[in-house]
């Protein structure tokens, strides 16, 4: 019997054309999410189960570091805004959306208890579940581990250390914060001096963490979520908080942030979603996840060994609107300095 190849194609065609997300009448809520898919999708699924809403979630990849979805929100808003909510794994680009007039004010009752420094005065965005910028160092090797940022400029510390290039994500935000404190040119000079002292630069936080766990470096400057993963994977590493003590700057805390977008659709569902995501329950879930994100509500349970900001270590004060206003220009300056 001769079977034509076209017959063999039929299942594929059926698969391709018959695919649907089970949302033939459209979702009740469209969420764009830059937080790690593995962390966020269970939380969103729980929201669906509780409310009965169908949620269409669109994820970013770490390589884009939130900017892929932010630029997509801006592009889609030109003709037909689709997203109802944006859940960002950092903060500066959420403020960009507010500045572009794409967000809607909403004062969620669940945000009560989050410090004012992490909430928008106009209620366009709210911060929660943060990451801290820390030193991850090997405990099985001798060597100097920085206690202050300017230790990066000392070859005795710098030669065994690494940090990500300040091109994306939390490292870019961190560098922008510092450049606002020190001046742009001074910050570029600081990076040049650190490199001259022997500090290595990698492509991302997770990458320098990996190289530290592999033994290429004694320490790296990274985020607490990467540090938590390294510890959970069984590597002999520990965390150190920079800039502690009287008169010190403190540690930079970069929260997730969430906002309602002006899609003009599903506003009630969006508000319910914000109430849920900003709840103590979700912050607790993120705190006990592999990323061990730091709750901003006071008094939330934390896994053993995780330090509490403001209580166990000092936190840096940041003018987030100024960071958001400066970040694009700084990114270009850093790109020209590093991409060569």
């Amino acid at each position, binding site marked *: 019997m001769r079977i034509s190849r076209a017959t063999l194609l039929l299942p594929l*065609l059926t*698969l*391709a054309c018959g695919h649907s997300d089970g949302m033939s009448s459209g979702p009740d809520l469209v969420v764009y999410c830059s937080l790690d898919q593995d962390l966020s999708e269970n939380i969103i699924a729980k929201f669906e189960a509780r409310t009965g809403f169908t949620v269409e979630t669109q994820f970013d990849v770490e390589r884009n570091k939130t900017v892929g979805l932010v630029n*997509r929100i801006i592009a889609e808003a030109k003709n037909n805004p689709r997203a109802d909510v944006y859940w960002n794994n950092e903060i500066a680009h959420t403020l960009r959306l507010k500045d572009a007039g794409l967000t809607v004010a909403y004062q969620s009752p669940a945000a009560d208890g989050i410090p004012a420094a992490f909430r928008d005065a106009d209620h366009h965005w709210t911060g929660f579940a943060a990451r801290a910028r820390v030193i991850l160092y090997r405990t099985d090797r001798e060597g100097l581990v920085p206690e202050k940022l300017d230790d990066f400029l000392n070859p005795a510390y710098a030669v065994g250390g690494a940090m990500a290039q300040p091109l994306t994500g939390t490292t870019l935000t961190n560098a922008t914060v510092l450049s606002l404190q020190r001046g742009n040119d001074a910050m570029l000079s600081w990076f040049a001096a650190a490199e001259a002292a022997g500090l290595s630069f990698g*492509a991302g936080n997770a990458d320098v963490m*990996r190289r530290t766990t592999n033994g290429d470096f004694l320490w790296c400057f990274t985020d607490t979520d990467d540090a938590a993963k390294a510890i959970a994977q069984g*590597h002999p590493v520990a965390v150190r908080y920079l800039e502690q003590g009287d008169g010190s700057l403190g540690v930079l805390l970069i929260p997730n942030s969430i906002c309602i977008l002006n899609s003009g659709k599903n506003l009630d569902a969006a508000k319910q979603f914000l109430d849920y995501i900003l709840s103590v329950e979700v912050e607790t879930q993120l705190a006990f996840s592999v990323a061990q994100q730091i709750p901003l509500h006071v008094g939330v349970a934390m896994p053993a060994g995780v330090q509490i900001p403001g209580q166990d270590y000092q936190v840096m004060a940041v003018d987030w609107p100024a960071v958001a206003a400066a970040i694009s220009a700084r990114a270009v300056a850093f790109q020209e300095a590093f*991409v060569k």
Partner: protein
Amino acid sequence: MIAVFHGRSPRPWWSLAVGLTLLAAWLPLLPILEPLLRFDRLAHMLDARTAALLWRSTWISGLAALLAIVLGWPYALLCTRFQFPGAGLFRLLMPLPILLPPLMVAQAWFGLTGMTGPLATVFTFGVCYAPLPALLAARSLHKQAASSFESALLIAPRLAFGSLLRISFLPAMIGAGFAFLFAAADFAVPDYFATVGDLFHVYAAEIFGHSRNFDFTAGATASLPLVLLGVVILLGNAILLKRQLGYEKNSGRYATAISAGRLTLPILLFMLTIVTVLLLAPLGRVIFETGNQGPLSERTWLEVSQQAFREGIDRGRGDLMRTLGFSGLAGLLCLFLAPLWAHMLLHCKNWLRLPLVVLVSLPLLVPSVALGFGSILMFNRPWLDQFYSSSLLPALLIAGRFLPIAVFLLLDAMSRVPDSREENAALAGCSYLQRLFRYRLGTQHASLWLAAGLVVAFGVRELDFAILLPAANASAAVRYYNALHFSRDNFVAAYGLILILLLFLPVMLHGWWQSLRSSDQ
């Protein structure tokens, strides 16, 4: 209307192909055409820093293409036209390395050897894209006219071997040209080797940075030097293809394979080495990675590996099916579109051929992130909501982006068929589609399937516009890269293996079916 398509004229079908390509490839390009064609900024763009980046991209891609040809061409030559134990199996394995995502190969080779830096990038691209020259050369060798080869063999084996080299060199070069294009546009592999070793950058990082820091139009403008380089490579390919048209044409009977004789063992060792480098070593390492843990972990390798595969299936099954769905649909579209375009290029006026080649190729040359943003601006309209959210949009974009590869393959295949076949069919009153698919492509179905298969494989790997399109966002590539950058190495390895297995199976089955048919003949 329907009668028009039943007629003998190709024009309605060619118009349909142009219309579909307009939808799939050219409309999304419209928003970036103006920023892309800012030639006045070219001089400003190429300062010392960016010129250094472009030069690094060029030599990395050039060496990678060279390595691809060094690995792929002899592989194709030996397993297609020489008799030795396992030749059929090696033929079957030939296309498989192209299905391995380059980033996964990079991770595997870093894990195996600790290699880093630009030369590691060259090696990875060379290994990943070696099947392109191999497959094109193999098609060419497979279709060599039996009579001329056997005559040469009777006169002197040296002559026969020379004819094998001659007939397969240009197709291998065309494959290497495509390898160059893919290597030059890739950001992920150099980025990976820069993260695990000393930092270096390529020009794709400049494009990516501009897309990220400003918007996609800035990325499109920044991509102009790479697009121009790509046009030069494709025009080179077109010239090679034109020269190829002068070669002998298939007579319908396969040429005899040469017995390896005393060279059996060296050939076998050589082939095993290449298969190990291209396929077995990276696959072995990835399998090891599924259960790899830090020294303080208390779980066994098997426990970790099993959990990684379980998670891969549980979490990623839906994404895998969606990805295979829209990539498969893109392959189907190319099964129809590519023959029409190849036939049109074969028959169009000489002055029109080069502009058409450039037009068809442009979606492959521009950054795919720009193509994604272009499609948002063109198709994200309230009255197109259903289409914008459907799997049809990523399928169309994948088809439009990778169509040039399918067209080049089929142009090469069609040029080997004597024009007289099609002319006789026309005289006998056959419709255009019968002439095209039965008489022009009747003996070239393997090329048609290879072309569609490559489109599917490249579609599955596509990440940049997958993030941007609603139906493609929940795709295997997005889940894979997400997990990769969040250090879920076990999951990444297991999920990558599941993906590869799903891609390998149809290719292996098709190869097996082909070999059965060949042995029947």
